[in-house]
């Protein structure tokens, strides 16, 4: 379901680097997402699937489950569905968010944040659309030069260590604000 028709790499393994257990779960839980939600040519991660690790590939992806790590589909569209929860940086041609994201979003062409979305992180894309009602905390980079520079660096050699919204270095022209690693409540609790 997650990678229908996905070609295997020469060494017999999958191209994506994901937690092995997640693959096992994926195989067992084929019906986790209704077929109506899986259009042809779009891979999907069903709502019962949780993946810890890095995703890479060459096809569009819809996420209704959970992903922790990094998602790198530089030439494709990533959709985080209403049920989707990701704690990951996303590098894609286009990103559409309907669910929950904690991480930075890099869209080479476009990023759209729907009204049902809850995003904590930074958005770097030449075109950004936001729907009223979306929850967003972070920054939106709209300076074309900074976007170009950030995307150029971000799409170079994949990082070995996933960077997330909680404050690790970003490859960008200007430093992007880090979303908070913990809630302000946690900060207060730590101090009181």
């Amino acid at each position: 379901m997650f990678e229908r028709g996905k070609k295997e790499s020469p060494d017999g393994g999958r191209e994506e680097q994901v937690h092995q257990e997640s693959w096992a779960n994926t195989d067992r839980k084929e019906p986790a997402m209704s077929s109506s939600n899986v259009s042809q040519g779009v891979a999907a991660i069903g709502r019962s699937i949780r993946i810890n690790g890095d995703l890479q590939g060459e096809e569009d992806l819809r996420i209704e489950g959970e992903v922790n790590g990094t998602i790198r589909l530089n030439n494709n569209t990533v959709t985080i569905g209403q049920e989707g929860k990701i704690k990951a940086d996303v590098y894609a041609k286009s990103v559409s968010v309907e669910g929950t994201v904690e991480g930075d979003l890099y869209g080479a062409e476009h990023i759209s944040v729907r009204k049902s979305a809850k995003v904590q992180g930074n958005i770097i894309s030449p075109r950004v659309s936001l729907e009223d009602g979306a929850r967003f905390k972070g920054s939106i980079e709209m300076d074309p030069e900074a976007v170009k520079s950030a995307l150029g660096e971000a799409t170079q050699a994949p990082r070995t260590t996933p960077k997330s919204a909680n404050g690790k270095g970003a490859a960008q022209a200007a430093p992007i604000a880090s979303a908070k690693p913990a809630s302000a409540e946690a900060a207060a609790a730590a101090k009181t």
Partner: protein
Amino acid sequence: MIGSLARSAARTELAGPAPFNAPLFRTLIEGVPEDERCVVLDLGKVCPQVITLFGGHRCRVEIAEVAQELELLNRDLDREALQHVAEGALPALLSEPVDLVLCWDTPNYLNREALRMLMAQVAERARPGTLAHALIYYAEPQMPVEPGHYVPDADGSLVNVAACTELRPAPRYTPEDLRLCLPAYTIERAMLLGNGMQEFLFRL
């Protein structure tokens, strides 16, 4: 519910929220350079129209949505704890400082200590000369229980599209109150608006 707030609420029920003229906001936006980089800190909720407004400029917009942290900020915390909460309510300290701050009506929802601390933290993230815009409930003793959601119109006026109709007492901060709470800032301009709010432009 009295005065202009009542009239505004009545209008809202009949024909949706009414726009109001905000000359200082317009001045602020018109002053954003088109060919120079500008970092905007928005203390309010993300607003598509605000993003569109800055979309034609070389901007980065930081969205803090401080409303999420109001309860914490207004707690009776010691100075260190309050500082941590205020820091947490804002984007992380940047090596690239903020040039422009949109406070909207957030200051009305903070007690004096919280306002002082939050704006001090904003000042730490901003460059000297940064302008901060704020809307203060001034003429009316009541204000909505939750912060507004202000949408800029094409003509530079603002519309509060928040659906909140329940009211609570407004702190009605005077310019002197604000001077005391915001010692790092000077009041550049202030105007009493038709809706009973006072519009402020502060300079760091």
